[in-house]
């Protein structure tokens, strides 16, 4: 799983390629978002947040759904691999979800005339998703047997993932309880360079998710291996100590004639 040449690294050809894509892609996105795309007739420059806010939101959903899938497969297969996938994806999902809340709030001020609305279904369900992810990750830090910890986390992981359709559909189900717009992508309300730049943002967010996911998964896997090696090491140490003590006792018996 880890880099064979240097086990201290989590990089590989694939991750380096993704890193290169991001190095080239992010400045390209900035170029399109800030200089080449037109400002919106009404929203003016605030529209440029679209190119980061929407991709972050979509891949926050992807990350949480991956956590849900990983959790289901862990409970089914009892495989550490799936547990590590769920854990890694939840961490990235939390970062993306946090960025969605921050960029959304920054966008909301000039657009809606408010930073935050407590009665807004989309905003509050997204905040709940963020808090649930935080809870999921905190739960993973609670000291417990690794299997028990993974089992508990998987149950919470599935609950967190169930929240995704609610967050995503909230703008359709409760249209008159949110300031948030409905999807521009699925309704075909974007055109020309704006649409192209949004797709570029989506591709880069996807690459960024995969890149972070691969690294975080490998770190998680190494942590699991260290935990396992640690347990085996402790056992071997005890066996070695026990063997040494027995040998010393036999020497004592032979040399000093002490019989117990």
């Amino acid at each position, binding site marked *: 799983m880890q880099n064979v040449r240097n086990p201290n690294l989590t990089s590989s050809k694939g991750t380096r390629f993704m890193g290169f894509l991001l190095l080239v892609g992010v400045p390209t996105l900035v170029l399109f978002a800030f200089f080449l795309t037109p400002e919106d007739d009404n929203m003016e420059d605030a529209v440029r947040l679209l190119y980061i806010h929407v991709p972050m939101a979509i891949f926050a959903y992807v990350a949480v759904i991956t956590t849900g899938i990983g959790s289901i497969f862990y409970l089914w297969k009892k495989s550490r691999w799936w547990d590590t996938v769920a854990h890694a994806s939840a961490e990235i999902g939390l970062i993306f979800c946090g960025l969605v809340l921050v960029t959304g709030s920054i966008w909301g001020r000039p657009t809606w005339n408010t930073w935050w609305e407590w009665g807004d279904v989309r905003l509050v369900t997204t905040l709940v998703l963020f808090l649930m992810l935080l809870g999921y990750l*905190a739960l993973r830090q609670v000291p417990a047997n690794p299997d028990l910890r993974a089992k508990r986390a998987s149950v919470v992981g599935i609950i967190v993932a169930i929240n995704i359709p609610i967050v995503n559909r909230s703008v359709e189900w409760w249209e008159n309880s949110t300031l948030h717009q409905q999807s521009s992508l699925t309704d075909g309300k974007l055109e020309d360079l704006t649409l192209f730049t949004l797709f570029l943002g989506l591709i880069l967010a996807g690459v960024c998710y995969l890149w972070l996911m691969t690294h975080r998964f490998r770190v998680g896997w190494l942590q699991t291996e260290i935990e396992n090696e640690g347990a085996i090491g402790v056992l071997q140490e005890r066996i070695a100590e026990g063997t040494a003590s027995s040998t010393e006792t036999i020497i004592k018996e032979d040399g000093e004639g002490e019989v117990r």
Partner: protein
Amino acid sequence: MPDDNQAMDLSPRRQESKKSPQWLPALTVIVIAGAVIILVWFLVTNSQSFLPADEAVESRLEMGERRFQLLGSPVTNVDDDQTFIIDGNEYTFFSVSFDGILVDVVSQGTPPDLFDEGIPVVLEGKWVQGPLPNPLYVFENGANDGWWFATNRILVKHDNDYREDRIGDAEERGQLPKASES
């Protein structure tokens, strides 16, 4: 050489575990409980949603003095001749429409930057029946039916349309009277 008592200590040894901070389980409980409380509070208090202008007109007698959030699209943008200083307060006069039904609005303060024709707004306020703060004012393309909506908070509910022909689209949806009708 160790003595006999030390030679074979087979009693279970306490393994030195990596101790997580003691506040972590408490934090977990607080975070999950917080999320649940927010969700429940939200679901309980969110029973009131935006009332579209046409429904608000239908129910204005029942609404009385109750504050609510009215949804509609400004019929025109706001010009300087729609803003007045009366008794030291700034008032802006405009009309909104939803599904072809017009509502006249008196807003305390200046509308936000994104306030524009065809862009839906959510107005927080209440119905008033009677003379306007400026009794001589007549709403251009407005209802002028003796009822007006007094608001002191305007939120912009920007739609999902980023194309150039936004106004034409709003007319098609019935959120704005068609240019030929006004």
